[in-house]
């Protein structure tokens, strides 16, 4: 297991206060993303737990792009990963964050 946390700038999410969502499942090659309220309105707090070692660089790039694409400020994301590829990670992030944007 590898675990790390990030705090990235992002446009504030209008629904941050009421945010609570779960996307995906922890199974081989997949991941789950738990969305909760974060600590700062213009930042997205992210905690990553991953079964794969040595890809922190790639994670940071994937996550930075995702919170730049979406309004994720004021959110906290907890990611539990079981070896998902960046393609799957990006898709799950889009699913989790777009769901909140739609409801805004």
């Amino acid at each position, binding site marked *: 297991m590898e675990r790390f946390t990030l705090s990235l700038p992002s446009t504030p999410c209008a629904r941050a206060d009421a945010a609570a969502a779960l996307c995906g499942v922890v199974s081989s090659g997949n991941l789950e993303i738990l969305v909760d309220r974060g600590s700062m309105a213009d930042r997205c707090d992210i905690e990553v737990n991953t079964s794969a070692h040595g890809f922190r660089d790639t994670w940071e*790039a*994937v996550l930075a792009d995702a919170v730049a694409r979406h309004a994720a400020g004021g959110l906290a994301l907890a990611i539990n990963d079981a070896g998902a*590829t*960046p*393609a799957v990670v990006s*898709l799950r992030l889009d699913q989790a964050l777009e769901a909140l944007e739609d409801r805004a």
Partner: protein
Amino acid sequence: MGAPWNQRAARRARRLERLAPLTRGREIAAADIIAALEAAIEPGDRVCLEGNNQKQADFLAESLADCSPERLHDLHMVQSVLALPAHIDVFERGIANRLDFSFSGPQANRLARLVEERRIAIGAIHTYLELFGRYFVDLTPDVCLIAAQAADADGNLYLGPNTEDTPAIVEATAFRHGIVIAQVNERLERLPRVDIPADWTDAFVVAPRPNYIEPLFTRDPAQITEIQVLMAMMAIKGIYAEYGVQRLNHGIGFDTAAIELLLPTYAESLGLRGKICSHWALNPHPTLIPAIEAGFVESVHSFGSEVGMENYVAARSDVFFTGRDGSMRSNRAFCQTAGLYACDMFIGSTLQIDLAGNSSTATLGRIAGFGGAPNMGSDARGRRHASPAWLRAGRERAGDAIATRGQKLVVQTVETFREHMAPAFVDRLDAWQLMEDMGMDLPPIMIHGDDVTHIVTEEGIANLLLCRSAAEREQAIRGVAGYTPVGRARDARMVENLRDRGVIRRPEDIGIDKRGATRDLLAARSIKDLVRASGGLYDPPRRFRNW
């Protein structure tokens, strides 16, 4: 003895004379097969052992490997595929020492070791069509050992649905005074149909068990991922629909299985029935069943059959090629020709793509070859007939210049990372290292960059036809290479510029909502769904039955 101009016929007569005491009529008893092979084959012979990625003359392969290396040695094996342990045993046991072939997937590691130990000399790795071609020029077999479904007393052969390579091999051998020996699953009084006439064959043996057939083209829909669904949507909307692709070949794998399963759902919803995917050069993929049932498909010609599809194919004779007996007729040589000359698109997956678009499934320590992919996945420069898809691709490539020919669409579809985070995009193909390690003349490239027209990944579609320089091409490839090191080293401004020009298109650029990419779009989500879609006609192999 024959006249000086007919030595081959005389040689053939000598061999048949030696074989005669071991046959009753045309039949060799299974217990006598080793003696029969030792009688029919001579040291130094060029021997074709039938076996491809599906049907295998496995009993004859094992029997050849069990022959005495004192009687039979220095054989030159010519064969489509090295798939069985016995195919390598003949080299390890000193019976054969030269090889010309197309594909060695399952035995690729053992083959590489033999080359390193200098116990085998590989003439060349070919495509299927190329190897068949050489059977009629400079690699004509002296003896061929083939597999058939049934023989009659006269030696006529019935090949069943898995006709595959047999007609090409027998034609080359029989008409140049070679010896044709078949293993058959059964002897019948009357054959359902004659696929190889008796006067092209010399002897047959009823094998102790039916010849092996690999269900290579069966893909369980349960294993198709959402990313593959997304990429399939992009391919259908961004390429199939845009070019109006009516005649095509699909590679093996889950990426293209996903496309097949999206035809009756997603493609139907786009109004594409009758506008795309009407004519196929394709094995009877079980995952094509829902599209056939939905009326998408007019015709399918096949290289070989697929285990379990026999009854379905026989019941859909308007779609598939079948004999007067009702069962399927396949033919690898003709279907490869169809894929090369009569199809407007090939789409398939690969393991590695470099910055020039060269792609290869060759990996270190394995000599695998590519079978038919290089023919399917290349532009036939001898083609002269036009079609809308072919013309449009040719005009895109020509740009401002006048197009005097069209272009086959050759599409590589890959997720940017494979399992275990292995990047599909690389600066340098493993093929180059393999070339050095194995002393090859050329790197084993499956599809050359200048034949690839489009690359589809989860990030987007790169249309290489629209690139006007090597630098643009490189950035177009980097621009869909995701978070691989190759992708992250992109020139972001140039990539955005290519996107503005439509060279790179993201899912949202072609109106695809990524959240719609769910497995619910698959017309079948399990093997059981496929059985249901076939009305119970598809009978999957046991290993695919989990209910």
